[in-house]
């Protein structure tokens, strides 16, 4: 062969190889499971992914995201779905189901508890949705570095908004969820009336006015792994965070962080399957497998999120119990995130929040 033909053959062969390698994972049958990254995804890998791969031999391709329906919506609407299973917050589960973005999952196919209780009775009441199956109870809490406050220590949610007594920057999630509720609670609204007030225009104005008080001292975070990092860097004095990530920093990384459980806003995380997912059967099996009693309990060994199944919650090891958001000691002034409220009002409040942020 002449050198020109050799070069041509080489070019064609490498292009073919490249195209072949670029074929999506879906073609080979691997399951794409999307979750929030960091310590949380690690706990799922240990408790769900590894046993699943061992049992079925189907590989799992783990992807990270920061929540919200935007990516799922874009995939479903463009007809090009690459995600098989997505870990969603409760308000996104409600929303996704409303907008036809998720496949329906028949709850009667979920495995029963070891003692025979059917799944519908074993899961916490009202947590199974037509398009999403819950896994854990998690909570957004305030945390601080105890070495930074030598005198009086912050102990309630109002202290987060008190820059005078507890100076230093604050960390908050770059979404209106929880921030608006906390602003109202710090402004004196009783916990059981928060969503009632937030449902009115005057209530929303009141929440933003309270946030205005500390606006210049806020550092905004988007990924769950950021707030413990901000605390460790000394970038903030107090920050909101997902409680499991703080557990990871306190216990696994031995950081001197303290969690303020007062005013915790608890929420659910659920598995949902985008409509048109490439590996629907495997996705359904994975959801059923990972929400059975043993798997559900096992995750609590790696991160401090409460299992949603009563049979699994009963198995939680004693050393993990103090860190659980549902522990009665931590649950004294807890607010349940109103998923329906956020499913309905998320768009306009996010719009108002983004504008307020950028002005």
């Amino acid at each position, binding site marked *: 062969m002449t050198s020109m033909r050799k070069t041509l053959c080489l070019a064609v062969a490498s292009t073919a190889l490249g195209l072949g390698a670029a074929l999506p994972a879906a073609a080979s049958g691997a399951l794409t499971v999307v979750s929030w990254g960091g310590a949380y995804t690690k706990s799922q890998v240990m408790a769900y992914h590894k046993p699943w791969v061992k049992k079925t031999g189907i590989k799992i391709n783990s992807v990270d995201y920061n929540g919200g329906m935007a990516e799922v919506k874009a995939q479903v609407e463009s007809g090009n779905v690459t995600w098989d299973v997505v870990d969603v917050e409760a308000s996104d589960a409600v929303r996704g189901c409303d907008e036809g973005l998720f496949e329906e999952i028949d709850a009667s196919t979920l495995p029963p508890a070891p003692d025979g209780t059917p799944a519908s009775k074993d899961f916490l009441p009202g947590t199974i949705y037509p398009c999403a199956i819950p896994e854990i109870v998690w909570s957004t809490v305030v945390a601080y570095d105890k070495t930074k406050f030598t005198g009086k220590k912050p102990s309630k949610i109002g202290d987060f908004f008190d820059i005078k007594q507890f100076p230093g920057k604050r960390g908050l999630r770059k979404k209106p969820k929880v921030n608006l509720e906390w602003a109202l609670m710090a402004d004196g609204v009783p916990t059981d009336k928060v969503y009632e007030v937030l449902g009115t225009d005057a209530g929303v104005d009141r929440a933003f006015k309270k946030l205005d008080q500390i606006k210049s001292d806020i550092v905004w975070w988007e990924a769950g792994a950021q707030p413990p990092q901000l605390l460790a860097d000394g*970038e903030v004095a107090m920050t909101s965070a997902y409680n499991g990530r703080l557990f990871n920093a306190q216990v696994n990384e031995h950081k001197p962080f303290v969690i303020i459980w007062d005013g915790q806003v608890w929420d659910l995380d659920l598995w949902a399957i985008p409509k048109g997912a490439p590996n629907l059967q495997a996705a359904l099996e994975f959801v059923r497998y990972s929400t059975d009693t043993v798997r559900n309990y096992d995750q609590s060994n790696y991160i401090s999120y409460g299992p949603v199944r009563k049979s699994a919650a009963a198995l939680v090891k004693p050393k993990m119990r103090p860190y659980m958001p549902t522990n009665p000691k931590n649950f004294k002034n807890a607010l349940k995130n109103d998923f329906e409220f956020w499913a309905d009002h998320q768009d306009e409040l996010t719009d108002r929040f983004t504008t307020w942020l950028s*002005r």
Partner: protein
Amino acid sequence: MSTSLDTLQAAQVIGGDSLKARLASAERRNKIRAFLLVVPLLLFLGVTFFGPIASMIGRGFEDPLLPDNLPLTLEALADWDPSTSPLPPDKAFRALGEEMLIAHKAHLLGRVATRLNYAKGGMRSLVTKSGRKIKRLAKAKLPADDKAWRTALLKVDKRWGKTIYWATIKNVGHRYTLNFYLRSFDLGRDLTGAITKVVENQRLYFFNGANSVWQRTIWISFLVTAFCVLLGYPVAYLLATLPLRTSNLLMILVLLPFWTSLLVRTTAWIVVLQSEGVLNNLLIFLGLIDHRVQLIFNRFGVVVSMTHILLPFMILPIYSVMKNISPSYVRAARSLGANPFSAFWRVYFPQSVPGIGAGGLLVYILALGYYITPALVGGPKDQLVSYFIADHTTHTLNWGLAAALGGILLVGVLIIYAVYDRLVGIDNMKLG
């Protein structure tokens, strides 16, 4: 061009008109052949470049959700004038009720609700709740006629008795609309459809004072360009006047950042500028400050890191122009009695201006479109327009607004380019 004319005249002299005609057709054939060689590339560019851009700009004008899902409602609302009667005719109530039910069953009502919510906050919950309640009503018995539908809808939610919600549906119901482009400048429409500024606390892009998004983008880009000129000019001068071996070595140092990822360079600035970072530690160690200064997540951090990242784009054009300036001009000026500064300012500097122009244009246009650097090192008040384009594309999924913002940015850049062409001439641009 002039050569072919000469050839033609020569042909006429040598062989008469037939030769001239044959030469002209031969030249035409050559031109067509040359064009055909370029056609595949033009088609490729058309499909992969011009096509998508045109489609994106077009998306800023399209608003098909309501015309596709509520066609009969919009038809019923066509003759209604919000300024004269507070509520539309009964047939509109019936059309809306029926179409909301159909959309709810097809799982499409959520999208319609979201679209209406962009125009009037609160409509998402109104529409989705109404859809659910009408479905429950359908299980019992649907209203029989228009008037019954009116009563039913008002019972489902009394907000359907307010003009503003119907006016919003009417307003959003045009398939082709200027609304997204208007929104990009903080303009909206009132009840009658006339153009007004949006509510004060929603103004962000243009009518929010000096820190409005468009003004902010133009100003920060200008600042970054100015700093790049100030810092880049001396470096380029050094590179152009040093002996070749040293200047090649220094050139490698200028080009090295291109081999590093943009994200790595940006996050390196976070490490340097953060409150417990290198610069603050140094300043405290030297005793120059006693409280840590906020150098990042604010305007300072954005300008510093953008200048750093865009500096090579300024240095290289200026360097390439300076390389072509013969040193004999300055020497001649000096020998004629000019002092060093005068020689530089009046002889050397004017010759290097095309380089500054080229570098400045490049840096300015790049800075206008910057997204990742301000997103990482800037505060919420320092985000440039591309952040909002990304936010509307990936978070709020308001693709119409994202397309409008992108289209305006593109047109703005093309105008700047055209102005530069007029003033300086693109053909005079030297990039090396």
